[in-house]
């Protein structure tokens, strides 16, 4: 079976390292990192990804813009997206979900929750 490809789009190196630590526990996954929305769009457009974890507040291009671009592209729109953000307000969640996010996690993250959501979106046991 091919390895699942996960893309982390997050400007904070600390968060990226923490997410990589958590996701490495999944079997047969390959994790790539992007440091802002534009970098994320570039990577997601050029390679195949099975899951994208996207922060909202990022320089150059924010996460919400990235999600709307992914969902409006026929080649990318089926990629599952999990938002990971400090924004815990109900309206922020609703906005992200209405743009096409599949899951919404708030910081500080819990590694178990991230793993469980990633497994669910990747459809692995």
């Amino acid at each position, binding site marked *: 079976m091919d390895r699942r490809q996960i893309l982390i789009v997050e400007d904070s*190196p600390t968060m990226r*390292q*923490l997410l990589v630590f958590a996701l490495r526990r999944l079997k047969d996954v390959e994790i790539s990192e992007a440091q802002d929305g534009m970098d994320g769009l570039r990577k997601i457009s050029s390679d195949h990804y099975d899951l994208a974890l996207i922060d909202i507040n990022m320089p150059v291009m924010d996460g919400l813009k990235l999600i709307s671009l992914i969902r409006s592209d026929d080649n990318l729109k089926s990629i599952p997206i999990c938002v990971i953000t*400090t924004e815990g307000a109900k309206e922020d969640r609703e906005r992200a979900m209405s743009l096409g996010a599949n899951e919404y996690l708030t910081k500080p993250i819990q*590694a178990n929750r991230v793993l469980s959501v990633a497994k669910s979106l990747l459809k692995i046991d």
Partner: protein
Amino acid sequence: MSGDQGDLFAKGEEFLSLFNRGARFTKEILRENERLRDELLRVEDRQQTAARTPEDWGKLRGELLERIESLEQEYQTVRERLHQVEEENQQFADRYLEIEEENNNLANLYVASYQLHSTLDLDEVLRIIIEIVINLVGAEVFAVYILDESTGELGVAASEGVPPSEFPGCVVGSGAIGKSLESAEPVCWQTDRSDDLAQPIVSIPLSVQNSPIGAIAIYSLLQQKDGFSELDHELFSVLGGHAATALFAARLYSQSERKLNTIQGFIDLLTK
């Protein structure tokens, strides 16, 4: 005459044949009779055995009851063992969760200390401290104070949620932050939020070899953050030690860079 003799002979032959068949048939009947008699004897014997004595039945019943009791005991033992195994399983599952949580906590602490020591640039260290306090602790409003050794005053070097200029200055030994610096231990006042910038909800003193170099003061948490966990307190300790060392090293490096540039400038001036 000869015709009558022939008839008689033929009849005799026929009679003899009939007699022989009768004899064979009689023998077969006798054999069958013998077989049926044996069968009858066996059936009678079985009947006698079956109804021999009530004691035999009692003995058999006793044996069966003992077997049932033994099986019931065995069943009970197996059930108890199953219960024990289920309990052990539960204990293992609980322990697994504890270890997993511990593992996650260690990952957080490792990432925090790794990032803090990943650079010698002062601004970068301050940015990493802010990232850790936002992303790992979950603080919304906070400030990083740095001690000016010449004046003994603490000034805000970086902040989140409120501009640095709005935070009041403080002195070591005075006020909530200044006093926490003297104690060299993180102080948690256990309130949800504080709008008074002179009174944070948590103050984490930053010190190197018992010398204070600054403090991190937290005033409010992200709305989804519900109080401080054990991990947060461990993070406070990591920040108190590692952030202080990282800031100290970055300042030393910056000073040495400046001095090196000055010396290099002199050398360039003298050699040109």
